[in-house]
C-alpha cells in the first residue's frame, strides 16, 4: 500500500479515453503522472470501453473514413443536433484539432478498421476502432505504462481540497481505505454521474428509476460534485444527457451496445396507451437513435413498444433478447400488457394512412403516411404480415452533460469567472461546454481525445509557471 506513488506532478482522476490521452501527453512532456482509476483493472476505461468510433474532420478518404468530412460540415452537424446550445469557439477548436487525432491514436497503439455492418452511414465521418473501445483502452494503458505513467486501480477521487481556486490534494478511496494524494496539477477526467442513481433522481424525479444505465457503474460523478461544491463553475443542465432507447430487459448497468434496438424505422412505436408519439421514419437510424431515449423517457412509465411485422426481418441488427412474437396484433397487445382494442386501432389507422411508394432502406424513400399525427415520413409500410414482433424500450442513459466550465486550454473556470491555476478537465466531465443538448455519434470520443491531449499539454506547461 505504501508503494503508492506520492506527490506526482500531475494527478489524473479517471481512467478512460480522456484521462489516458491526458496522462500520455503530460508524461511525454516530462512530468511525473499518477492515474487514479476508480474501477478494478478488469473494468477499467469508464464508458470508453463501450465505444467503437470517433468522429473527426478530414479532407478526403484516408483509409479510415470513406470520404471527406470538412470542418464546416462537422460544425453544421454539431450546430443542428445541439440546436445551437454549444460554444462555437470551443466546438470549432475541438473540430479543428480532430483532424490530427487518427495519426496520434495510431502512434499510441490504436488500430482502425472499416465501418461495422449496420453502421455504414457513419463510414464517411467516423473512424472505427479495430476491436472496439476496449481495444483502444488497452492500447492506451500499454502506451501509458511503457512511458512510465503510474496507474492505480480501485482508486476513486471522492473529494478535493482547493485553496483559492488552486488544487491542493485529492481524497481518494482505495480498496475501502481513505488516502490523500497531493499533486501540483489536477486533471479531472472522471466522467459524468449517469451511474449515480440518487443524483439522477434529483434531476429526473421518480422517472429515473426506470432508466437503464448503458455504461459503467463506476461513473458516480463524485469528483464532479466535489468540484462544483468547492467553487468550480458549472456548465450544462443536469437533465441533459445522451440517451438512447434500449431493450427493457437490459441489465441495470453496463449492458453496452448489444441492448440497443435498431428496428424503429421499419415499424411503429407506441406508448402504454398504445398511441404513437413520434415520427419513426424521420431520418436514418444512426442519425436518430440518440433522440429516442429522451422520447421514451417522456412517455408514461418511461416505456415504449416498437412493433414490426414479418417484412423487415434482416434489415436491422440482430437483437440480444428475442422479441415478443404473436400471430395477431391483438395477441401482441395482450403480451405487451396493452389494450388490444387501442393497439388494433392504432395499427389500423397507421396502415390506412400509408401511401404506396418504393420502399428502400438505403435512401430516405417516399413511403410515408398521409393524414396521420404524428406522421411517419419514410419507410412507412403497412404492418400486416404476421408474425408480428415487439420489443419494449426503456431510456438507456449513456452520458450526462452537466459538467465543469473550461476554456479552450481545458483550464477549469471558477464560479467567479477566474481560471484555476492548476486544474484542467477533459472528457465527459466537461462535455457540457460543447454539448448543450443532442448528440452526434462518435463525438464523445472526439471531445475526450482532443481535450485529453490539450489538458495533458497544458498541465505540463502550467507546471513551469507554478
Amino acid at each position, binding site marked *: 500500500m505504501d508503494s503508492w506513488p506520492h506527490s506526482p506532478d500531475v494527478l489524473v482522476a479517471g481512467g478512460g479515453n480522456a484521462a489516458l490521452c491526458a496522462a500520455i501527453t503530460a508524461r511525454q512532456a516530462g512530468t511525473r503522472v499518477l492515474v487514479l482509476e476508480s474501477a478494478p483493472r478488469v473494468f477499467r476505461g469508464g464508458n470508453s470501453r*463501450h465505444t467503437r468510433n470517433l468522429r473527426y474532420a478530414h479532407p478526403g478518404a484516408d483509409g479510415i473514413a470513406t470520404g471527406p468530412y470538412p470542418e464546416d460540415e462537422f460544425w453544421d452537424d454539431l450546430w443542428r443536433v445541439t440546436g445551437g446550445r454549444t460554444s462555437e469557439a470551443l466546438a470549432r477548436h475541438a473540430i479543428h484539432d480532430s483532424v490530427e487525432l487518427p495519426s496520434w491514436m495510431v502512434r499510441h497503439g490504436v488500430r482502425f478498421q472499416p465501418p461495422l*455492418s449496420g453502421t455504414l452511414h457513419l463510414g464517411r465521418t467516423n473512424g472505427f476502432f479495430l476491436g472496439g473501445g*476496449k481495444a483502444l483502452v488497452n492500447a492506451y494503458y500499454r502506451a501509458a505504462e511503457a512511458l512510465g505513467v503510474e496507474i492505480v486501480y480501485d482508486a476513486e477521487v471522492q473529494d478535493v481540497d482547493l485553496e483559492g481556486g488552486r488544487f491542493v490534494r485529492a481524497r481518494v478511496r482505495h480498496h475501502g481505505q481513505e488516502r490523500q494524494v497531493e499533486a501540483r496539477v489536477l486533471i479531472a477526467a472522471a466522467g459524468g454521474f449517469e451511474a449515480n442513481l440518487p443524483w439522477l433522481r434529483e434531476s429526473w424525479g421518480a422517472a429515473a428509476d426506470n432508466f437503464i444505465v448503458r455504461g459503467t457503474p463506476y461513473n458516480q460523478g463524485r469528483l464532479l460534485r466535489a468540484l462544483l461544491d468547492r467553487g468550480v463553475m458549472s456548465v450544462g443542465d443536469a437533465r441533459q444527457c445522451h440517451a438512447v432507447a434500449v431493450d427493457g430487459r437490459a441489465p441495470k448497468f453496463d449492458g453496452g451496445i*448489444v441492448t440497443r434496438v435498431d428496428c424503429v424505422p421499419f415499424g411503429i412505436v407506441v406508448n402504454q396507451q398504445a398511441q404513437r408519439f413520434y415520427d419513426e421514419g424521420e431520418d436514418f437510424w444512426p442519425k436518430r437513435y440518440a433522440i429516442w431515449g429522451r422520447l421514451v423517457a417522456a412517455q408514461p412509465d418511461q416505456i415504449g413498444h416498437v412493433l414490426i411485422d414479418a417484412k423487415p426481418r434482416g434489415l436491422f441488427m440482430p437483437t440480444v433478447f428475442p422479441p415478443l412474437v404473436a400471430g395477431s396484433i391483438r395477441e401482441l397487445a395482450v403480451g405487451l400488457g396493452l389494450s388490444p382494442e387501442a393497439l388494433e386501432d392504432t395499427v389500423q389507422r397507421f396502415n390506412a394512412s400509408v401511401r404506396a411508394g418504393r420502399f428502400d432502406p438505403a435512401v430516405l424513400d417516399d413511403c410515408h403516411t398521409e393524414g396521420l399525427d404524428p406522421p411517419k415520413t419514410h419507410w412507412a409500410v403497412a404492418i400486416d404480415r404476421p408474425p408480428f414482433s415487439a420489443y419494449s424500450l426503456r431510456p438507456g442513459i449513456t452520458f450526462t452533460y452537466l459538467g465543469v466550465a473550461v476554456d479552450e486550454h481545458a483550464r477549469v473556470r471558477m464560479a467567479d469567472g477566474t481560471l484555476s491555476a492548476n486544474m484542467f478537465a477533459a472528457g465527459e466531465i466537461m462535455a457540457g461546454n460543447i454539448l448543450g443538448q443532442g448528440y452526434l455519434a462518435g463525438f464523445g470520443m472526439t471531445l475526450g481525445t482532443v481535450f485529453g491531449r490539450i489538458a495533458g499539454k497544458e498541465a505540463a506547461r502550467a507546471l513551469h509557471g507554478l
Partner: protein
Amino acid sequence: MPSTDSDGLIKEAERVMTICNACRYCEGHCAVFPAMALRIHFTAGNLRYLANLCHNCGSCFHHCQYAPPHAFDVNVPRVFADLRAETYQRYAWPAPLARLFRRNGLAAAIITAVSMVALVVLTVVVAGPALRGGHGGSFYAVLPHHLMVGLFGAVGLYVAVALAIGVIRFWRDVGAGDPVSIRLSTVVRASGDVLRLRYLGGGGGDGCTYPTEAPSQVRRRFHHLTFYGFLLCLAATTIAAIYHQLGRMAPYPLWSVPVVLGILGGVGLVTGPIGLLLLKQRSDPEPYRRSQFAMDIAFLVLLFAAAGTGFAVLCLRDTAAMAILLAVHLGVVLGLFLTLPYGKFVHALYRFAALVRYAGERSRPPPRPG
C-alpha cells in the same frame, strides 16, 4: 478433460454468438465474426463451423466489453475451443477411437511407446549384424526398404482414410441446408489464409493477443516454423523415396536435397514446438482452455521428438548406435502417424475446411433480406 456435453456446448455457443451478433465490435479481427454476421440464428452445424473457423487468437476475448466477470460472461475462444474438441470426437473414425481424444496425452504416450518397442523389436529381429555396425550409414541395411515402405505405406493409407472420412462428414454436417460448392478459387483463397496464417494477425497486422493481451506476432512465427518444418520433413522423406525408386541409393550426402530439406525441416520442428510450448506456459488462463493443453502438448512433444531423434540418427548415422536410434526414431514417427487422426493434428484439416467454406460464403451474393 474436454467437455463432451454436446447439447450444453451448442447452447452456450449459441448464447454467446447471439450476444456477439448484436455487438460485432470484433468484426475486424478474423473470419469468425463476418461469418457470424451472415446469420441471424445459429444451427449446431453453423456453430461447429464457426468454432473451427476460430484460430483461438484471443483478440475477441481481450477486447470484449462483456468478458467475465461481466454478467454476460462472453468468452468466445473458450466455448469454441470446447466445441472444436467436441467436433474432433464427433467426426473421428472409427467412432470408438474418438475416446482417444479424451485422455489424449496418455493415449499418445502409450501409442508412441508401443510403436517404439515394436520398431526396436522388429529391428533387433531383422537387422542382424547391422545392429552392431557394418551398415555403412545405410538405413535400409538396418530395416529393409520394402519393410519400411510397406509399414509406413499401410499406416499412411489408414491415416489418410480416417482423416478424410472425418473431414467429409464435418463438411456435410456444417453445410446441411446451406451447402457451399468447392471451387478452385475458394481453395486457393483458403490455402493462402493457411499458408500465411492470416487470422493469427489480429486483423490490424500487429498479431494476436497471445500469450498475453498485448498483440504479438510470436505465436504466428512459431506456428510457421512448426508447419513449414513439418512440410519440409515430409518433402525430404518423399524425395528420398523417389531417389530410391530412381536407383539413387541412401545414404545421401549432407548437401543432397533430402538431407538439406530434412535438416531445415527438423530445425523448424525443434524450435517451433519448443516456442509454442513455452508460450502455452505463459498464456492467459481465461480465454485458453487449459483442459485441452494435453492434446496440444502431446502433438507438440511428438513433433519435437520426431525431429530430435531424426537429428540424432543423422549425426550418428555412421556409428553402431545408428541402428537402435533409427528404430527409436521410426517408432516415434509411427506413433505420430498413428495419432494424427486422434489428436491436435486434425485441427489443420477442420480449419482448412472451414476456411474453404468461408471463402465460398464470401463469394456468394449477400442474401436478400425479407
